[in-house]
């Protein structure tokens, strides 16, 4: 039983990072209707940018902010220069997936060419371990949970209390109608991609902080759980992605604790496939969004 409680604790820590990434992925899909598989390699990029900064003596949390900003900018440029023009020309959705997967491969192997295939580490995390309600978490993990929670709160406030947030929600819901209402959808898209790209970068650096060591496959390893979380919550719904992240994180860790740890990732895979086959709109996807997901 103690094992399961500890696993739940780990699950919350992992789930927080997965939620962070899943929200960014979900926002990108909501705004542009693209399943951006390059997301994984962008997280890897952030992790390595963070590594570079840390090796030059920058504090890990500042490195997280800078890494997030770098990937935010890269995401905006990527969307503007490659993805948006292809969509405008009427490229089919399947071709867009192939493009984003290919871009992810290119980015991943460019990183390998520069940084090498060996594992790297951010180094020993100093700080105490905390014991809360039976969970045993390191200070770093708690910090990540707090960070994720504040970023989610910030996003919530942005989406609900600001005009920009309203514009983002409108563009997400019906782009043409939003444009008819005078919303500059291109600019809103750029901002949305910067925000979601920053979340992607933050998730990448956070992953590198919480794992003992990582290599160039970091992003692609965690991308699937993030997509699973996003789909579970209802793709395009940031709040769903947050809850989805927690569910995926906790269930993976608990499953690993009670059975073979090698199968930890399989839980996320199964969640994703079952959701796609049984209920593609996710737990919180509205019925109208099913139109987007079915043949079209």
């Amino acid at each position, binding site marked *: 039983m103690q094992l399961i409680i500890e696993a739940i604790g780990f699950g919350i820590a992992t789930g927080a990072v997965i939620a962070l990434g899943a929200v960014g992925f979900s926002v990108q899909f909501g705004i542009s209707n693209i399943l951006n598989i390059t997301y994984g390699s962008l997280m890897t990029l952030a992790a390595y940018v963070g590594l570079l900064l840390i090796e030059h003596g920058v504090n890990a949390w500042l490195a997280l902010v800078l890494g997030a900003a770098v990937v935010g900018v890269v995401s905006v440029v990527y969307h503007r220069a490659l993805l948006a023009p292809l969509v405008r020309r009427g490229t089919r959705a399947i071709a867009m997936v192939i493009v984003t997967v290919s871009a992810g*491969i290119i980015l991943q192997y460019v990183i390998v060419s520069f940084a090498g295939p060996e594992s790297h580490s951010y180094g020993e995390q100093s700080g105490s371990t905390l014991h809360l309600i039976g969970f045993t978490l390191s200070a770093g993990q708690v910090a990540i949970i707090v960070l994720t929670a504040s970023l989610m709160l910030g996003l919530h406030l942005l989406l609900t209390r600001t005009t920009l947030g309203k514009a983002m929600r409108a563009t997400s819901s019906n782009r043409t109608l939003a444009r008819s209402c005078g919303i500059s959808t291109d600019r809103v898209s750029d901002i949305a991609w910067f925000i979601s790209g920053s979340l992607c970068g933050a998730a990448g650096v956070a992953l590198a902080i919480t794992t003992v060591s990582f290599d160039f496959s970091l992003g692609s390893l965690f991308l699937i759980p993030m*997509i699973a979380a996003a789909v579970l919550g209802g793709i395009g719904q940031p709040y769903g992605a947050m809850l989805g992240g927690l569910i995926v994180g906790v269930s993976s860790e608990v499953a690993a604790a009670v059975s073979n740890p090698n199968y930890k*990732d399989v839980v996320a*895979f199964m969640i994703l496939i079952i959701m*796609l086959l049984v209920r*593609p709109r996710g737990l919180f996807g509205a019925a109208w969004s099913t139109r987007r997901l079915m043949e079209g």
Partner: protein
Amino acid sequence: MAWEYYLVVMLVYLGTDLLAVWGLNLEFGVSGVANLAYIVVVAAGAYTFAICTLGPSSGNGGFQTYIGGFTLPFPVALLAGALAGAVVGTLIGVTGLKRLRQDYQAVAMLVVSLMVATVVSADTGFLNGSAGLALIPNPFADLDPEVARWAYVGVVALCCLIGFLVLRRFTTGPIGRTLRAMRDDDTAASAAGKNVIGLRLVVQAVGGAFGGLSGALLAGFIGGWSPSAWVYIETLAFLSCVIVGGMGSDRGVSLGTLIIAVLLLQGVQFLPQISSSPGLSEDFGWIILGTSTIIFIWFRPQGVLPERRPRYLRKSSSQSPG
């Protein structure tokens, strides 16, 4: 001598790549089935070939554990590999039957591919986990090595010839037209009375058979097979050949395979070796692959040799066709 060996390797790889690309083209280019888990059928064929030709797992000192071990002759094992590819292809096809957006299905297929690889790697008793299977017997082991190598090239060439003839039965003629109709508008095809679901499953079975045969031939040549040979991005390599060459066109994708698999991926081997990064040429290969795919989708999505749209003779009339 080294040149001769290199040529043999390249020819075998070309042959097996052609078989796989033909299968994927049948599924994706001709029939519109986005099977991004294609590499799984190749792996199924390779593993089945291995467990058919290997002896029981306790043999060779028992350093690998796996199911099967039937010590069957080479041709039987090849057929078994193709059959396994067909079965696995059909199973994958069943999961893709729900009518989702194509890109959702594509991502689901990628996840299936990743999941199968994870499960096979994790379960050490099934197919020897992440270490894979080794010491797969070569059918020509008794012959002089040079003759044995060229004999294998001959076998691959024969399989390609037979495979191509079978392929043409599906990509041309009435079946080909039906498949293309299904690809272009499956609702219309269904309304015209075509059994779209049945056709999809048949196509995935046949495409899977091609992939399985490809994997079986490859496993027999290399003598080993492990999960590192079929990471989920390998499907992208085949997809790249299809897109660059010309989706839906057999000649096109054959040319695409020649360009990508032979010219580009082998060409990078000849770049000057940078001693600090020994794996650079392989990484570069992937970068080139991804870049070519994106360049072609951007500039020339129909590929180098586009699919020829059928032209039907107009009925002669007093007016000239205008």
